[in-house]
């Protein structure tokens, strides 16, 4: 029952890493050419946030599928934790994206296909929690929300991959552009990679915290019953 208390060193390492990334984003990387002023620096935060929002969606899918197979409420807690973080990070990505859009293109929202996809990802997460809140029974809440997550996941690829390719897009090329090569100044690239690693670490730190909290709750309930 009792977990061995270890010195949690890696959240501190993560803290230091993120501090370095934030410093590097402003002082180490050069201002990108072809963008207004210093505006492109937002890429070091915006891209990792969008990446984490999508990563959270995938973690949520895996946990949901596992719940449907094993029927362990811990998997449901994992799915919910991933979705909670996904919601936060997709909001952050939307906000940073529209700040950039305001500076570059003069308006916060342009109905760009990528803006639409992140908005829908947001809606999916919101719907997921609206559904969870409407079901009082733990087991039923777990299986219905897992099912919805899987259903949403199978329709999302159309939005992320098909729709943006049908339409002309304002959005700068993604990291790996349409020619299949990486086209970025090397210091910027280093910082971006560092930021991606940092944000991924941040996600997993928050995620494990949330899951551990849920596990404690589940265990306490089990003890109360027996």
């Amino acid at each position, binding site marked *: 029952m009792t977990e061995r208390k270890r010195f949690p060193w890696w959240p501190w390492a993560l803290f230091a890493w993120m501090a370095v990334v934030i410093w590097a984003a402003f002082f180490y990387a050069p201002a990108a050419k072809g963008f207004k002023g210093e505006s492109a620096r937002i890429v070091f935060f915006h891209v990792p946030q969008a990446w984490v929002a999508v990563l959270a969606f995938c973690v949520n899918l895996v946990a949901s599928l596992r719940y449907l197979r094993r029927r362990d409420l811990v998997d449901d807690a994992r799915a919910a934790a991933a979705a909670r973080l996904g919601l936060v990070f997709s909001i952050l990505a939307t906000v940073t994206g529209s700040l950039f859009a305001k500076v570059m293109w003069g308006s916060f929202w342009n109905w760009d296909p990528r803006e639409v996809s992140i908005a*829908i990802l947001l*809606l999916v997460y919101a*719907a997921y929690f*609206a559904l969870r809140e409407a*079901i009082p029974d733990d087991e039923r809440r777990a299986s219905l929300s897992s099912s919805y997550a899987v259903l949403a996941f199978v329709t999302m690829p159309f939005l992320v991959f098909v729709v943006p390719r*049908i339409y002309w897009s304002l959005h700068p090329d993604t990291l790996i552009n349409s020619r299949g090569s990486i086209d970025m100044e090397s210091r910027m690239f280093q910082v971006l990679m560092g930021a991606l690693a940092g944000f991924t670490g941040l996600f997993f730190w928050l995620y494990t915290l949330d899951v551990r909290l849920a596990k404690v709750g589940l265990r306490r309930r089990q003890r109360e019953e027996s």
Partner: protein
Amino acid sequence: MRASSLLSESLAVLGKELTSELRSRVALNAVGLFALTTLIAVAYQIGPYKIEEADRPHLLSALLWIILFFGATSGLARVFVKEEDARTAKTLRLAARPLAVFFGKLGFNLILLLGLESLVVPLYCALMSYTVEGVAGLVLVMACGAVAMAASSTMVAAIIARASGSGTLFAILTVPLALPLLVVLIQGTKAAATSAALAAVIPALRAIVSLAGVTLVAAVYLFPVVWHD
């Protein structure tokens, strides 16, 4: 043996849906009146000549799908919600295998959607003087669109029927799933309106059919879980 009895059981569920709908007409009235109201509001306020010639194909197809989607949303959730409300859900759950229930209800929603389309589309074309070059293409887009929309909304209906406050939840849960579909449906309808060649609607049709296929496969896997838990 198994397949044929699945078919017969699905038809039994569909038959039951049709009989009880014809006797109560709740979904029929809701969908029909809702769609007609939206249609009249749109036609009266916008009419045939308020939109620039160049924008017509795109805007008119978007408006058409908004009308259809609103009408559909008002009635499609009922197939499962009414079973929970009338407390027949448990009786049905104990008697039928899940896939028979799913296909029966899917069939009913599909009929409802096709009925809605064949009521609204001709009226819309007349009221908005919307000329459609490729009628065959439009029919294909409408038919495949109905299948895709019925598949995803039947699944969502099954999910929300088991939660409280199901009326509002249906809209919240359907919209993110239906948006990609609506986007390609609007594209397909626009293509059919502007070109008589069937080839014009093929790209949209391909997306609609694969979306419908993916949703159906996921539904066959997920529905038994949703139905029994």
